[in-house]
């Protein structure tokens, strides 16, 4: 007879080791689909490595890819810590990007030290509003936020197409559904000449540190964790559960909105409907790999970005579908779930009569 019992406390080595092992395991598991695709497996991994560390450009590209993932990973982390299931970061990202474009493409003429913070603020506010809605429907009407945020992603994406064919459409865009470019004073500064890496990364890192402090060192963070661990007990202890959930929703949505601002004002320069290849959903994997720790999010975002950038290079060089990257990301999520279970519980054998 097998019995599953919780460990007293997961050791520090397990807490850090499990995600690392899970990530490596998922990466190794990719050999199976690679073999099916008929690729030389060693060569494929070599190409992936090359795509990340092969040149300074490759390495900065990876960090550029990690930037939005840090934001969306933090968005998922803060919400999930409160057991608020924000699955709508993808939509909130686009709300942030739309707000950035609405303000930053010539509507306001101001020097960079005013315009850049303003764009960041409106983008964060738009994202926050996008999550405040579902949180209100949850706390006021009891509507499940999983379903509302999932469905809002579609609503926002269609709204985006409407905006890109209407008010936000670039009149000089030769008919393409894209916005006008962000003005120079509104663009996030580049970090290195001739590279695409931009100061959105710095903002993301600052956000991670702030999120860590807010979560671990403030009363607000304490309340948020208490609500997430046991909402009934938190309510009994006099914590305003609805207020706390609302706060978590606003911060989470704002972070997702910033991902959109960073992509549009730091990287692309103008908004199209394919700005994000699923950064919002991938952020959930980033957060889970990080064990819902804000500092861990930075590391896991870099890992996931490496998978994407490495797999891109590999698939171009070897003709393997780049959907392989999505597959590795999905496998990492499932591995880390199982790994987390192994870290928290141990399986013991007990004699049948004892059960």
């Amino acid at each position: 007879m097998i019995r599953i019992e919780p460990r007293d406390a997961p050791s520090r080595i397990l807490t850090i080791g499990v995600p690392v092992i899970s990530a490596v395991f998922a990466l190794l598991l990719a050999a199976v689909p690679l073999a099916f695709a008929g690729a030389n497996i060693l060569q494929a991994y070599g190409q992936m490595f090359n795509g990340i560390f092969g040149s300074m450009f490759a390495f900065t590209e990876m960090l550029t890819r990690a930037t939005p993932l840090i934001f969306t990973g933090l968005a998922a982390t803060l919400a999930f810590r409160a057991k608020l299931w924000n699955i709508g970061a993808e939509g909130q990202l686009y709300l942030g990007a739309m707000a950035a474009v609405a303000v930053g493409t010539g509507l306001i003429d101001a020097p960079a030290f005013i315009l850049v913070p303003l764009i960041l603020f409106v983008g964060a506010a738009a994202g926050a509003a996008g999550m405040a809605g579902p949180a209100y429907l949850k706390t006021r009407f009891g509507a499940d936020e999983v379903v509302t945020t999932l469905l809002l992603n579609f609503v926002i994406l269609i709204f985006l197409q409407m905006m890109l064919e209407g008010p936000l459409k670039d009149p000089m865009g030769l008919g393409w559904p894209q916005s006008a470019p962000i003005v120079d004073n509104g663009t996030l500064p580049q970090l290195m000449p001739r590279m695409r890496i931009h100061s959105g990364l710095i903002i993301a890192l600052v956000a991670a540190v702030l999120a860590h402090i807010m979560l671990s060192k403030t009363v607000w963070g304490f309340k948020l964790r208490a609500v997430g661990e046991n909402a009934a007990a938190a309510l009994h202890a006099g914590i305003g559960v609805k207020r706390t959930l609302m706060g978590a929703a606003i911060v989470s949505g704002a972070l997702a909105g910033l991902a959109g601002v960073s992509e549009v004002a730091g990287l692309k320069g103008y908004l199209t409907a394919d700005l994000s290849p699923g950064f919002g959903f991938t952020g959930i994997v980033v957060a889970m790999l990080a064990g819902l720790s804000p500092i861990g999010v930075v590391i896991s975002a870099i890992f996931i970005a490496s998978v994407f950038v490495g797999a891109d290079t590999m698939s171009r060089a070897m003709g393997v579908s780049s959907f392989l990257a999505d597959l590795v990301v999905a496998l990492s999520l499932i591995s880390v779930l199982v790994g987390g279970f192994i870290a928290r519980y141990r399986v013991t054998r007990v004699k049948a009569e004892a059960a």
Partner: protein
Amino acid sequence: MDILQILITDSFWAAALRIATPLIFGVLGALICEKSGVLNLGIEGIFVAGAMAGWMAVWLGAGLWGGLVVAALVGGFFGLIHAILTVPLGLSQHVSGLGITMLATSLSYFSYRTALPQVSSPPRIEPFQPLDLPILSDLPFLGPVLFQQTAMTWLAIFMVALVWWVLERTPLGMAIRAVGDNPDAVDAQGLSVYGLRIGAIVAGSALMALGGAFLTMSAFDAFFFGMVNGRGWICIALVIFASWRPGKALLGAILFGAFDAFQVRLQTEVGAFVPSQVFLMAPYVLSIFALVIVARRAEYPRALLKPWFKGQRG
């Protein structure tokens, strides 16, 4: 044409039932999982996997019914992964479900691209054809609405009856409902909580995959990226709307289908004044709206989302 006159045309109701068909499979699948106490957010990905696998099987020569069997098996396989993660391991049903959606979607897309690397226009299969029954199909109104649908629509309606009968009228159904409400009591009776839940998730996931297969094997004749487009998530909303009852689930799916068919027709009437996206948004907004209305009095299965471990009283 008068807008309301649309509502009495046979082509409108035929379209409504056609749009509802994949949702009927999906809602029933989600309902079975949730009745046993487990939320299955893998549904969106299982739709994709069912659509891809069913289509691929037919394309490789399995025949239409063989394709449905393959789709159901693939759906059941992903359901089994979700079941293992959420039932004996008791992991977060939300995160595991999203993981299944990501896994099933990426695996389907990867397999499709690997099998067909360079196609610009996807290969087509011969899909299910509209039924042509003597007399019945020629009836006015009822003929086009009911008897010129494909066999899959009838399979979906049959499944509603079957799921209702199993859940409400058989000991197995009673056990599944009990395990979603009070697993301790089921365990005390000597039944396997794990077995019942795993079985329910696998069966439910197989049904979800049939919903996906309808898209590639009846509604269209090919597989496209992004073709599921949130239908799985809509099913999750519809289950709540239907209060976890198969009959109401059928009604909810048909209402949704009717609304969707209506907005398409409305678009042709007033499309000149209103951007088309307003109509595209409508089904999702309607689902959210419906959810908000019913949320307060929704009677969730009491053990939904709560992991249960053998030997640990909750």
